[in-house]
C-alpha cells in the first residue's frame, strides 16, 4: 500500500541520511571511527569532531526540518492555501530584523542572536495579526497573507537601513545568517530547539482535527461548530512561533515549509494529524540532505543551507506548476 511504503521509506531515508551526515565531512571518517567516537573511544580529535561538530549539527538539521515542515503543513491547511508557508507571514522578515540588528550592533554572547531573532519574529507575527484585524479580515486568510507580505516588506526595508552603515564584515555576517546554516550547532541549541519542537508538535497534533475542519472553508467550519476565528488564530500563532524557533536556531532556511507538505500529500496523506507528523519526518530528511550537500559540494567552503533548499524548491515548483496547467 502506498502509504505504508511512504512511512517506511521516509524513516529509512532519515536514518541513512543522518548516518551519512555524521560520517561524511571535510575530515574523512569511517563508520567504525564514528561508532567508536560516539561511545567515547578512539582518537580525541575524532571524538571531538563527531560529538561536538557533526552530531549536534545533524540533530539540529532534523529539528529545523521537522519544525518547518509541521509549521507549513498546519498553515496551508488552516489558511486554505497550498502555497502558504511560514515565511510569508512576517516570521522571516521579523526574525531577520532582530538578528540583523543584533549583528549590526555587534551584540555579543552566544544566545544574543537567537533571542533577538525570536523576539523579532514574535513581534512581526503579532503585527501581522493586528494589521489583518485592522483591515477587517478577522477570519479571511487572504487578508492575513497580505498583512504578512506587508510586514515582510517593512522588515526588508528595516534590514537595509540597519545594514547601510555597517562595516563589511558585519554585513557579511548578517547575510550569512539570513542564508541559513546549522554550522553553529551546539548541544545547548539542540536541547532548546528539541523542547520547542516537541511542544509545538504536541500542540499542533492536538489541534490537527481543527485544521481538517478549517480546511473546508469558513462557513462550513462554522457550521460544524468550530470557532473559526479563534481556531485560525491559534494555529497561526503556533505555526509562526514554531517557525520562529527554527529561524532563531538556524537562520532562514526557505522552501522547506512550502515543499514538504506537498511531498507528504503526494503520498496520499490527507488528514492533518497524519500530514503534520509526516511533514515532520520528511522535513527532517530534507534539511539533513540539504546540509550534507551544503558541506560536500564546494570544499573548503560551505554553501548556505537556505540556498541549497531553495535550489531544491524551485524545480519542485516548476513540476507542480506543470501539473496545474
Amino acid at each position, binding site marked *: 500500500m502506498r502509504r505504508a511504503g511512504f512511512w517506511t521509506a521516509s524513516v529509512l531515508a532519515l536514518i541513512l541520511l543522518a548516518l551519512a551526515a555524521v560520517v561524511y565531512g*571535510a*575530515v574523512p571518517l569511517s563508520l567504525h571511527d564514528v561508532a567508536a567516537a560516539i561511545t567515547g573511544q578512539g582518537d580525541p*580529535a575524532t571524538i571531538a569532531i563527531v560529538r561536538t*561538530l557533526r552530531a549536534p549539527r545533524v540533530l539540529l538539521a532534523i529539528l529545523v526540518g521537522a519544525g518547518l515542515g509541521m509549521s507549513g503543513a498546519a498553515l496551508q491547511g488552516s489558511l486554505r492555501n497550498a502555497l502558504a508557508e511560514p515565511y510569508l507571514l512576517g516570521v522571516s522578515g521579523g526574525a531577520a530584523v532582530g538578528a540583523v540588528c543584533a549583528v549590526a550592533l555587534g551584540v555579543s554572547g552566544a544566545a544574543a542572536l537567537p533571542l533577538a531573532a525570536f523576539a523579532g519574529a514574535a513581534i512581526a507575527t503579532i503585527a501581522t495579526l493586528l494589521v489583518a484585524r485592522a483591515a477587517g479580515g478577522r477570519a479571511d486568510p487572504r487578508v492575513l497573507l497580505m498583512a504578512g507580505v506587508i510586514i515582510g516588506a517593512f522588515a526588508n526595508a528595516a534590514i537595509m537601513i540597519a545594514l547601510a552603515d555597517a562595516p563589511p564584515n558585519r554585513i*557579511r*555576517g548578517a547575510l*550569512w545568517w539570513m542564508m541559513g546554516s546549522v554550522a553553529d550547532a551546539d548541544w545547548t541549541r539542540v536541547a532548546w530547539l528539541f523542547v520547542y519542537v516537541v511542544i509545538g508538535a504536541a500542540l499542533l497534533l492536538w489541534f490537527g482535527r481543527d485544521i481538517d475542519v478549517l480546511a473546508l472553508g469558513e462557513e462550513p467550519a462554522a457550521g460544524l461548530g468550530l470557532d473559526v476565528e479563534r481556531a485560525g488564530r491559534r494555529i497561526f500563532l503556533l505555526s509562526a512561533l514554531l517557525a520562529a524557533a527554527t529561524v532563531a536556531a538556524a537562520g532562514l532556511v526557505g522552501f522547506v515549509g512550502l515543499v514538504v507538505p506537498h511531498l507528504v500529500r503526494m503520498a496520499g496523506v490527507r488528514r492533518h494529524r497524519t500530514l503534520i507528523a509526516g511533514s515532520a519526518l520528511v522535513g527532517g530528511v530534507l534539511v539533513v540532505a540539504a546540509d550534507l550537500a551544503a558541506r560536500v559540494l564546494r570544499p*573548503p*567552503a*560551505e554553501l548556505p543551507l537556505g540556498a541549497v533548499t531553495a535550489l531544491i524548491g524551485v524545480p519542485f515548483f516548476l513540476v507542480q506548476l506543470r501539473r496545474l496547467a
Partner: protein
Amino acid sequence: MEMPFVFSRGSLFVLLTVVVAATASCGRERAHADASVLDDFGARVHDGTAHTPARIVSLNPTTTELLFALGAGSRLVGRTHWDVWPDSARFVPDVGDGIRPNIEAVLARHPQLVVLYASADNRPAAQRLRAAGVEVLALKTDGITDFVRATHLLGIATGERAAAATIADTVQRSLDRVRRETATLERPRVVWPVWESPLMVIGGGSYLTQLLEIAGARNIYADISAPSPQVSLEDVIRRAPDAVLVSPEGAARIRTDPAWQAVPAVQHGRVLVIDTSLVLRPSVRLGEAARSLARLLHPGRIP
C-alpha cells in the same frame, strides 16, 4: 608699405601659436617621460614636485598613515572613518567610507588630490571626482609589493619622492632583516581566523600571508587565493595547524568554544594572541609587525 611675411599681424599670430605649441609639446614630452607611471586604475600619475597639492583627501588607512610618514600630514584635509593611525590622524576631518565614498563629503573639503583604494567598487567614484576637476590617485595596498609601490607613487604625487624612497627602503630592509633571522628556524603551520560566523580565515591573497612567511611561519590556507576565504571548521582540523593566531577578543571565544576544542592546536593551548593595532593593515610599520609576529611564533629566538 608691405611688411615682409615675418612681421605681418597674421603671421605673428601664426608664429605665436607655433611657439606656444612647441613649448607645450616640450612640456608634454617631459610629462610623457613620467607617463609610464600609472596608478592602479591605469591613470597617469601627476608629478607633484612642480605643483604640490596643498589639500589632500586620503580614503584608505594605509595611505593616510603613509602621508603622515611622508611629512604631508599637514596637507591632509580629509580621511575615512577608519583611519586612526597615527594618532594625529584623528584631527583630520572624517568624510565617511573609503569604499564607495560620499562624493559630496569629499568635494566639500575642496581637495586637489584624492587618494582612493583601487578596488573595482571605487571606479565610479574615481570617474566622478575626475569629472569634478580633482586629481585622483588610485592605489592598491593589499600586498607588501603593493605597499612599496604605493609609497613611491604617493611620493611622486605629493612631491616627496625622497621621503618616499627612504620609507620604502627602510621597510624593505627591516623586513629583510626579520626574514634573515627566521630563515633557519622551524616553520610552524598556522591558521588565522578573522570572523566567527561564517568562519573566515586569512588566505593566500592577504599580505598577512606574506608577512607570516617573513616571520618564519606558513599559513595553511596560503593555497587559497582569496584574502579572507570562508572555510569550515572541519577543514581547519583536516589541515592540522600547529598554532592558531587570533585577536584578543577572538582568543577568548576560541578558547572557550567547545567546537574549537576539536582542533588539536587549541586543545594543546597553542592559541597565539596578536597585536591587532600593529598588523591590521600594511603600513610603514610593516617591519615592526613582522618582528612582533616572529617573536610570537618563535619565543626567545628573535631579538
